[in-house]
C-alpha cells in the first residue's frame, strides 16, 4: 500500500521537463510545415486540388473519433490510479501475474516515459522481470483507446492480428529477458 515508493518528485520532474519543451517545439514544427506547404502549393498550383481534398477528408475522419478517444483517455486517467497498478502487480506472480501485467498495462494512459518510474518501483517491490517487461510493452503498444483508433483506420483484421502477435511475442520477450537477466553481467550478450 505504501505509495511513496514511486518518487513523486522524480515523476514530476520528468513530466515537467517534457511539458515545458514540447508545446514550443510543436508550434515551431507547425510553423515550418505551414511555410513549406505554402511554398510548395504556390510553386505547384496543379497539386493544390488533390492536397486540399486529401487534407479535408482526413480531417473529417479524425474529427469523428478524436473527441471520443480523448474523453475515454481522460476518464481512464482519473479512475485508474498508477498506485493501484503497482499495488496489484507488485505482489502477483505465475500465469495470473503475467495476464494481470498485460491487463494493467493496457488500461492506464500516458506516455511511456511515465511508465518507467512505475516499472522501476515494481522491480524494487520484487515483481517478476517478465511481468515488468510485459507491463511496459503493453503500456507502450496495446492501449485500449489506441486499439480503437487502429480498428477505425486499419481495419479489424490488421488490428486483431497485430494485437495477437504482439501479445504472444511480448510474452516470449518477457520470459527471455527474465532468463537472460539471470546470467549475470558477464554473459549479457546472450
Amino acid at each position, binding site marked *: 500500500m505504501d505509495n511513496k515508493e514511486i518518487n513523486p518528485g522524480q515523476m514530476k520532474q520528468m513530466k515537467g521537463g517534457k511539458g515545458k519543451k514540447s508545446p514550443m517545439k*510543436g508550434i515551431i514544427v507547425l510553423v515550418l510545415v505551414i511555410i513549406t*506547404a505554402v511554398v510548395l502549393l504556390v510553386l505547384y498550383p496543379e497539386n493544390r486540388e488533390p492536397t486540399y481534398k486529401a487534407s479535408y477528408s482526413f480531417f473529417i475522419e479524425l474529427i469523428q473519433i478524436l473527441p471520443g478517444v480523448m474523453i475515454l483517455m481522460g476518464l481512464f486517467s482519473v479512475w485508474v490510479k498508477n498506485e493501484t497498478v503497482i499495488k496489484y502487480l507488485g505482489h502477483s506472480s505465475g500465469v495470473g501475474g503475467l495476464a494481470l501485467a498485460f491487463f494493467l498495462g493496457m488500461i492506464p494512459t500516458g506516455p511511456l516515459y511515465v511508465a518507467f518510474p512505475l516499472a522501476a518501483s515494481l522491480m524494487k517491490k520484487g515483481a517478476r522481470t517478465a511481468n515488468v517487461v510485459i507491463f511496459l510493452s503493453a503500456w507502450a503498444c496495446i492501449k485500449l483507446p*489506441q486499439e480503437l483508433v487502429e480498428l477505425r483506420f486499419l481495419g479489424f483484421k490488421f488490428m486483431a492480428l497485430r494485437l495477437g502477435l504482439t501479445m504472444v511475442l511480448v510474452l516470449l520477450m518477457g520470459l527471455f529477458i527474465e532468463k537472460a537477466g539471470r546470467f549475470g553481467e558477464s554473459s*549479457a550478450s546472450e
Partner: protein
Amino acid sequence: MNITVIFINAAAVIGLIISFSKNKEKTVKSLKIALKSTAKMAPAILVLLILVGLLLGFFKPETISRLLGEQSGIYGIALAAIAGSILMIPSLIAFPLTASLVDSGASIAVAAAFITTLTMIGFVTLPIEIKTMGRKFTYLRNGISFIVAVVIALIMGVIL
C-alpha cells in the same frame, strides 16, 4: 457512419454517464484532462493534416508503393522499422497516417513494422529508460522489441 466510430463515441458517452453518476468532481477533472491533452496534441494534429495532404497531393501512389509497397521487400520493412524507432509520433496520430500510406500503396508488413517500432521503441526516451531501469534491461528490451516488430511485420505480410 462507420461501426467503430459509433462504438468509440458510445463508449465515451456511456463512460461519462457512469462516471458522472458516481462522482461529479472526478468527471469534470477527466474532461479537463481530455481538453488539456487535446490542446497539447493540436499542433501535431495540424501538422499531420497538412503532411497527409501534401503526401497524397504530391506523391503518386506508384512512388509510395515503390518505396514502401510489396516490391520494396525487406528494405521497405527495415526503413519503416528504423523510422518508427527514431520518430516520436503520438500513436493516436500514427494510425491514421499509416492508413493513408497503406491507401496509397504501402504494404501491410511495412505498416505493421512502422506502428510496432513506433510504439515499443523510443530513441528519445532511451536516457530516461536507462536511468530508471538500468542499461542492460533497456538494451535488451529495445533490441528484442525491434526484432519482435520485424517478426510481426513479416508474419502479417504473409497472412494478410
